[in-house]
């Protein structure tokens, strides 16, 4: 189908976007790349009265380094730019490229944005899962000014976030974690499909000893989630290598800690099984990176 009749306004600045959102309240929806929103409009799953297009706000394309040394990526950065490692301030972080490469297909990745994905907050979204595992900070701006929210408190539930109706995401900050090794794994039946389960793992390793761990999962609950209890199991453990039995045990604990839904794509049992396999691969991948890079990133 085609999109229903709608009103449209293109904001030229963040202030203008915030003013438009304030004016139209719940009736407005923010349009960035539109790769989730426009299919939803065409399928009549969403019917906002006004689209506030932020796609022309140059400021939201900028990336840089924050005062704390975090790597900030403008919210309009496309998936493709991240996949190609074309954001200088982010450096060549393999896990960003890997996660981006799983998103939709090439023509989706050239148009869709990281800020749009995070705001949409699909449980299986690669960026949402990775933002949790990397302790990303979401920069937003609204009538009340700017605020920064840790990813961990940003995703509230089924397609819902901590964003107020008058706020837009201006950037995503990835903190620099010295000894961190991160990896992303997902499974989808066909290339480009939404992941049935996605897993991102970040380990802070010192000479094989895990100082801290962050494990995030997508597709297993209404929102992307972290598993703090399981993460604590990994802390202090000295992994012998990617084949360490502890890797399998950790992955098993993840599967035990969740109660994923069954739907037409997969049963709950299958999602738990996938979780075990994917976490296991992601952790092993971290340990392998650590091995080949002498524990530094």
């Amino acid at each position, binding site marked *: 189908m*085609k999109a229903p009749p709608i009103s449209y306004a293109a904001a030229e600045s963040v202030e203008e976007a915030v*003013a438009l959102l304030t004016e139209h309240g719940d009736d407005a929806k923010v349009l960035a790349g539109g790769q989730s929103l426009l*299919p939803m409009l*065409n399928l009549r799953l969403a019917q906002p009265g006004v689209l506030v297009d932020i796609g022309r706000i140059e400021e939201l394309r900028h990336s840089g380094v924050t005062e704390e040394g975090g790597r900030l990526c403008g919210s309009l950065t496309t998936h493709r730019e991240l996949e190609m490692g074309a954001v200088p301030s982010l450096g060549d972080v393999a896990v960003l490229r890997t996660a981006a490469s799983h998103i939709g*297909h*090439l023509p989706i990745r050239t*148009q869709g944005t990281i800020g749009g994905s995070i705001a949409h907050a699909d449980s299986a979204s690669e960026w949402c899962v990775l933002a949790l595992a990397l302790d990303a900070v979401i920069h937003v701006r609204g009538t009340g000014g700017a605020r920064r929210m840790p990813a961990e408190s940003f995703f509230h539930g089924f397609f819902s976030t901590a964003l107020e109706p008058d706020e837009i995401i201006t950037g995503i900050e990835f903190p620099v974690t010295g000894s961190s090794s991160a990896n992303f794994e997902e499974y989808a039946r066909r290339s480009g499909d939404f992941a049935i389960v996605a897993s991102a793992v970040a380990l802070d390793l010192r000479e094989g000893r895990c100082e801290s761990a962050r494990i995030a999962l997508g597709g297993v609950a209404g929102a992307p989630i972290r598993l703090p209890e399981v993460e604590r199991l990994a802390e202090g453990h000295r992994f012998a290598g990617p084949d360490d039995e502890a890797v399998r045990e950790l992955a098993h604990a993840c599967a035990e800690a969740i109660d994923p839904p069954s739907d037409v794509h997969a049963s709950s049992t299958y999602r738990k099984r996938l979780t075990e396999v994917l976490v296991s691969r992601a952790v092993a991948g971290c340990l392998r990176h650590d091995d080949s890079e002498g524990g530094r990133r």
Partner: protein
Amino acid sequence: MKESSREQSAERVQLCTTINGVEVACEVDAAESLMDLVRGRGLTGTHSGCEHGVCGACTVLVDDRPVRACIVLAAQVQGRTVETIESVGGPDDPSRLQRAFSACSGLQCGFCTPGFIMLATGLLRENPCPSEHEIVEAVSSNLCRCTGYASIVQSIASVVEADPDAGAPARPPSRERTHEA
């Protein structure tokens, strides 16, 4: 803020864009897709398939990059450069890719073909020498229900093999103005 004051929301939108090298100024419905914009201007080589971003039949290039025109609003291409299959080549002057699709049987019924040609044109413009894996990954984007894809991959690969240094076909000269990066 400037004297023009803040943007007001409206159901009709003034649009200036470049389509196949021609500058276009028109008024569109806010809800109108880029697909309907180009088709409405007689450029019906851009096919309408699923209309929700799944099949890729409506793939066009915006600022050299492939996008699905059914899930991009016409209003979003303000100031940008759009290319459709009509700019690539026709029966009398087919592009290398179009000749390759013909030579390698990269099409049967032809419905999906403009989308595949635009997708591959965009791919080769970004990366003139994609590996077979990269070609397969890229064409997984679009649906073809006739060929089974092998001949499509072969068509694109044959262009790369024939002239790996030649790069992708250049885009037609725009009469004016290019969009900032």
